[in-house]
């Protein structure tokens, strides 16, 4: 039986709330006090009074929403007491600065994972399994059709297509926070040392990652580059720019899209991706189920995604599970 934590942790469609601390976790609206798992816009929003998060997440929020005067950095593993609840942050392996929130009171432990993945990512600290009574998980890719191949193999495939078409350029669509930097890091790990050219919307977060110590090599703005000079090179842009006017100036681009959704053909076609790359910053089905089996929580709470499948799988494995039906969480442009 999972411990009853209703006295100090409540669930409503608006999110998870600690009443004794008057603190919300990843709230959808501005609140007096917020604990933020990571910088993606469906988790981090501007305008909170006090914000507890890792220093990296606070830096990302400052970049996106302006200065965070109420920012209160908390290192991974460091604990604070909020209204009688011991609160600490632990790596989630999702994007730079991403954290799981561990909550403890009266011997009961709840871990709110935020978004997470288990596969390696050179741009952030790896997920740390934290023993708990209640594990709060995402379910973005919680269907057994979602099995992400190794990201290294996907990047190698893209580089091979570029090598076979040196007169074209490789345009990779990727979410500007996390995915884009991971793809660049993977390109570097695969030995691609040439400059990578960036859409304007990617410049600031790339620079921030570099400032925070992530090695990304030679990055340059694509703006103003003559098409001729981009032949044989990699250009990165946010997904929305793949099909718009911006990409027309590129030399016959091989349009690639890096996303876990690319596993499904119809989704890849919707994106207009000629080269779908299955690279995800979210746990796939195997990672989700393995994590649940590894932690063996007394109860699993599911925040967002394909929760029916994960809840059903839990029932097959005698694990108590419930869907929280939070509002405002989207399938990120992952």
């Amino acid at each position, binding site marked *: 039986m999972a411990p009853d934590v209703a006295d100090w942790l409540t669930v409503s469609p608006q999110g998870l709330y600690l009443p004794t601390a008057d603190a919300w976790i990843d709230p959808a609206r501005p609140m007096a006090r917020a604990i933020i798992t990571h910088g993606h816009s469906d988790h981090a929003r501007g305008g909170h009074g006090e914000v507890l998060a890792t220093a990296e997440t606070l830096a990302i929020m400052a970049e996106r929403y302006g200065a965070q005067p109420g920012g209160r950095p908390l290192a991974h593993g460091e604990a604070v007491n909020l209204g009688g609840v011991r609160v600490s942050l632990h790596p989630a392996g999702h994007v730079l600065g991403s954290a799981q929130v561990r909550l403890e009171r009266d011997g009961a432990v709840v871990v709110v994972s935020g978004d997470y993945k288990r596969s390696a990512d050179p741009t952030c600290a790896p997920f740390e399994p934290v023993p708990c009574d209640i594990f709060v998980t995402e379910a973005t890719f919680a*269907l*057994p*059709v979602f*099995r992400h191949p190794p990201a290294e193999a996907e990047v190698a495939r893209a580089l091979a297509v570029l090598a076979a078409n040196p007169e074209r350029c490789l345009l990779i669509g990727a979410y500007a926070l996390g995915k884009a930097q991971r793809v660049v890091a993977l390109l570097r790990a695969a030995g691609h040392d040439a400059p990578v050219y960036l859409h304007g919307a990617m410049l600031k977060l790339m620079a921030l990652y570099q400032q925070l110590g992530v090695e990304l090599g030679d990055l340059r703005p694509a703006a103003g580059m003559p098409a001729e000079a981009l032949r044989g090179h990699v250009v990165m842009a946010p997904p929305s720019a793949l099909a718009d006017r911006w990409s027309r100036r590129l030399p016959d681009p091989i*349009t690639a899209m890096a996303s876990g959704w690319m*596993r*499904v*053909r*119809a989704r*890849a*076609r919707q994106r*207009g*991706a*000629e*080269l*779908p790359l299955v690279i995800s910053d979210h746990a796939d089905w195997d990672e989700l189920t393995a994590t649940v089996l590894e932690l063996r929580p007394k109860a699993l709470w599911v925040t967002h995604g*394909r929760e*029916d*499948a994960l809840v*059903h*799988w839990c029932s*097959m494995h005698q694990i108590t599970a419930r869907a929280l039906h939070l509002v405002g969480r989207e399938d990120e442009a992952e």
Partner: protein
Amino acid sequence: MSSLSGFSALLAGLSFAGGRNAKLKLIADWLVATPDPDRGWGLAALTGGLDLPGVKPALIRALIEERVDPLLFRLSYDYVGDLAETVSLLWEPRRGDEAPGLADVVERLGRLSRGDGPAVLAGLLDRLDESGRYALLKLATGNLRAGAGARLARLGFAQAFGLAVDDVEELWHGISPPYAELFRWAEGKSDRPDLSTRPLFHPFMLAHALEAPEELDVAAYSAEWKWDGIRAMAVRVAGEARLYSRDGNDISRMFPEVTSALCADAVLDGELLVRGDGAVGSFNALQQRLGRKTVSAAMLEQFPVFLRCYDLLFDGCEDVRQLPLMERRARLADVVRGMDPAWFDLSPDLEAGSLQALAALRAAPPDPAIEGLMLKRRDSAYVAGRRAGLWYKWKRDAMTADCVLMYAQRGHGKRSSFYSDFTFGAWAADGALLPVGKAYFGFTDAELKWLDQWVRTHTTNRFGPVREVEKALVLEVAFDSIAASTRHKSGLAMRFPRIARIRTDKPAAQADTVEGLRRQAG
């Protein structure tokens, strides 16, 4: 790399490639790089020429539900929207043997018996990776033809070996998969195959819509009625007779009385019609006959069919396609005179010396089975496809278009259990299908049931209440007017569109183009 993985990479490439030229290049490159007989089987699969017994979706479901929890399967299928893809993603192979090649797969599926289906299919799935499993399941369910696939694949073949596509089309229907002699000829390793002794389909000559009647040089054209039936070609060579539909399908068995009544060697182009009370019977009656594998005596009695002939391609074994139309018509009259008028008659020439006289004929046809006029250049040779200035159709109801069904949505009220709102499109110049309108009436209850069933069995994608379907069904859409609009991506909108008819006889590739509709919009 096994050849099935090469083929599955081709399929993936085709489903993601941007434009028609990119697709052509993928097909051409693959045909050049792949050995026989694999490339022939692949080409057959792409052109819809692979006739495998067919694995039923129920069998595939049963297989996967042995391995994956049924609810997890159902949730996955709901999300992915395509059975073959869902199963290819869910299947966890029990590895071991080497992956099978395309020819192995075709051969194995070709001699599948009812009992060994599940075991054979599971065995093959176990030896393949995800994209290989997808290709296998698409092959097994006979579900590879997509939109303009067949024509595009033949164009790709012509491009691969630097051939004229007309030359390929001419031979195409006479050679069966895996087309070894076709490849030998294409690679210059043998002479052009001699097919003159076989009763083959020849590609039809097609008409453009007449858009500027006032500019027509009336004296240069002969006029005939445009019959509202099914275009068909009757072929007899060395005593062997066949009847072919518009896209070259052999429909001899659906109309055995016509086929067997063909009593002289010849190739006739004409319209299949149902004989009614004095006038020619309805198109719907003809639809009753089409698509039936066997014909009962009652059907033969109730819907007697005949061929109304309007052109002659071969007279005996003499190819007369290069002769001017009027000479072919004279010979046609002789040929038809020798046949039983119960099954073959001649579409008459119409006398009209002026545009006014033509317009009067068009406005008041003597038979409801006439949908307008055909105007054919008197000196034109019989050439495959649609050529500018040679043949025109001048329909009575000028505002109709042959469109391709793209999406269907569930209706409202008493039709809420049927897919009854249809979005249809026309072809853009780059080979994409663009929506031009949406219609939710015009069809009979029986046709609605038929359409609903078709939608359910040809769904490729689901978005809430909307289903995207295979781009394979042609709908004749009638409308009051058409005008420029930003509502659809095509830049056109129809006023008061309704489904006039379901054109199962017409291949999707031959539906109207956005450009043609734009000209009607003026």
